[in-house]
């Protein structure tokens, strides 16, 4: 049994009386000590998937319409709210993209870490404060003894993200979900934060789900990767297998679209067109209007997920045809 199992997840948004699916048939699992990367462009459903796992979809407009999410074997979707709250922020934690909007500007950062610690662990204020300083040391905030009393606006963007990480790690979670944790940061700071996350994982054995639009970040940090396109997992494999043999034309297109820093290309092979909006009716494979390999079959029938190689899943009628 894997630590986190997502099975056939379906999320829909209700719009003008209609239920439009935004995430469809998404399945993956994550083990202890493992990093899963979910990569895709805006609107592919990667963030919604992570919010669904954390139970943060809230409200009636966007909701889970099908599927299972199991954490340590417990079905999170049927779990009573009271029991859920003992897991969230404790055994499972999340860091978001924009640390300035996720930290409360009117509370000292120490108090925000302490609040989580006291909620989940039976600690006195003094003990929790000591633990907060320890955590700030762990995420390499300089002068943690003084910084614990700082307000968020007194820290730099990179430091704020470290505080978010400290807060997320405060109760030694088994699973950490990081939604674009470095997107708002400069590259040199991004490297420090990613290195820190990898280092902490090594020490604590935390499983990580890393969500990013940046294939470079994902390729460098993750053990396995799920590429999402318009609400579905187009291709999923271990990082090594994926880049050895790309099986889905979208993954190939994504890779060809990136102007890499270590090679000179005269013209980028851009994917034509754009991601269809939710309102646009679409039959068959969601990628077919932009795919050079598409046939009539692709425009009529949604491809099943098949095993291209052992452990290398792909949702395409012609898997592997793109490999050059």
């Amino acid at each position, binding site marked *: 049994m894997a630590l986190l199992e997502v099975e056939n997840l379906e999320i829909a948004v209700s719009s003008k009386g209609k239920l439009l699916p935004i995430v469809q048939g998404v399945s993956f699992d994550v083990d202890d000590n493992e990093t899963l990367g979910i990569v895709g462009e805006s609107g592919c459903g990667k963030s919604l998937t992570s919010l669904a796992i954390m139970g943060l979809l809230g409200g009636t407009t966007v909701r889970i319409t099908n599927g299972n999410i199991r954490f340590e074997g417990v079905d999170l979707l049927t779990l009573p709210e009271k029991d859920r709250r003992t897991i969230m922020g404790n055994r499972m934690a999340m860091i978001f993209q924009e640390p300035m909007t996720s930290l409360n500007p009117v509370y000292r950062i120490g108090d925000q870490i302490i609040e989580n610690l006291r909620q989940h662990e039976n600690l006195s204020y003094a003990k929790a404060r000591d633990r907060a300083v320890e955590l700030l040391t762990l995420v390499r905030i300089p002068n943690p003894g003084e910084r614990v009393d700082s307000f968020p606006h007194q820290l730099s963007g990179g430091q704020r993200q470290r505080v978010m990480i400290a807060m997320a790690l405060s109760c030694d979670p088994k699973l950490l979900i990081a939604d674009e944790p470095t997107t708002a940061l400069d590259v040199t700071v*991004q490297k420090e934060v990613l290195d820190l996350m990898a280092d902490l994982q090594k020490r604590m054995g935390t499983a990580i789900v890393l969500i990013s639009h940046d294939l470079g*970040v994902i390729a460098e940090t993750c053990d396995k990767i799920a590429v999402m396109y318009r609400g579905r997992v187009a291709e999923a494999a271990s990082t090594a297998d994926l880049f050895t043999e790309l099986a889905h034309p979208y993954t190939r297109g994504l890779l060809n679209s990136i102007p890499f820093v270590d090679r000179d290309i005269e013209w980028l092979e851009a994917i034509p067109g754009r*991601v269809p909006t939710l309102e646009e009716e679409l039959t068959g494979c969601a990628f077919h209007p932009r795919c050079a390999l598409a046939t009539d079959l692709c425009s009529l029938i949604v491809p099943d997920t098949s095993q291209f190689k052992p452990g290398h899943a792909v949702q395409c009628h012609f898997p592997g045809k793109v490999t050059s």
Partner: protein
Amino acid sequence: MSEPLLRIANLKTHFQTKGVGLFGKKKVIKAVDGVSFHIAPREVLSLVGESGCGKSTVGRTLTHLEKATSGEARFEGRNFLSMTPAEFRPLRREIQMIFQDPFASLNPRLKIEQTLGEPLFIHGLCKTWDEARTKIAAMLETVGMDPKVMARHPHEFSGGQRQRIGIARVMILKPKLVIADEAVSALDVSIQAQVLNLIKKLQRDSGVSMLFISHDLGVVRHISDRVAVMFEGKIVEIGEKRQIFEAPEHDYTRKLLGSIPRVKIGKEVT
């Protein structure tokens, strides 16, 4: 050596901050602190650096959106930093700017034909709307859009399409220098690739010079002839693209290049 199109010498743009409280000390922020470079005709120079390094302020100073503190900037030999707005106006057609945010840089109340047509009339490139519409239609086609879209409003377009419209607005004036400030940073990779190809093609076809401001080293490598690396208001290294990427000399350039996550493709992956 022939005179470059643009020559910047020791440019400084400083900002004064308000002091904290009534008696707080005022502070001077040296956003751009002694920057010099030149751009030849048909050349693309990139300014690259992290947030706060002053790269955007350079672009904004050159278009008179910020006031330079000192230094010289010559466009075809004329020093234009000290020009009055009236003196600078004719140059505004020749020095054009593409902005980052395609959602904030198009007037939502104007139809596309108004957004593209207005500058044509202001700069006296057209006399009648018929004439303007012909030019607009041709320009929209050049940036890969259906000329029919000129009757529509910006909210009807996606980010990538808006950026194409922003590029059309700039290129329709046939400028000599385009300053592109993070022009593709807000776009998703698949759209970014399309727009980058478009910018590169338009630059090649028209021979316009470009100052390409970006934080993304991959994009910079793709588009530039020469690269200037900025750090804390100064250029720490400037040179041919190949030299900057293959044999960087300054520590900061090396650190920047070393921080970029890479994708290893193919069988050599272990």
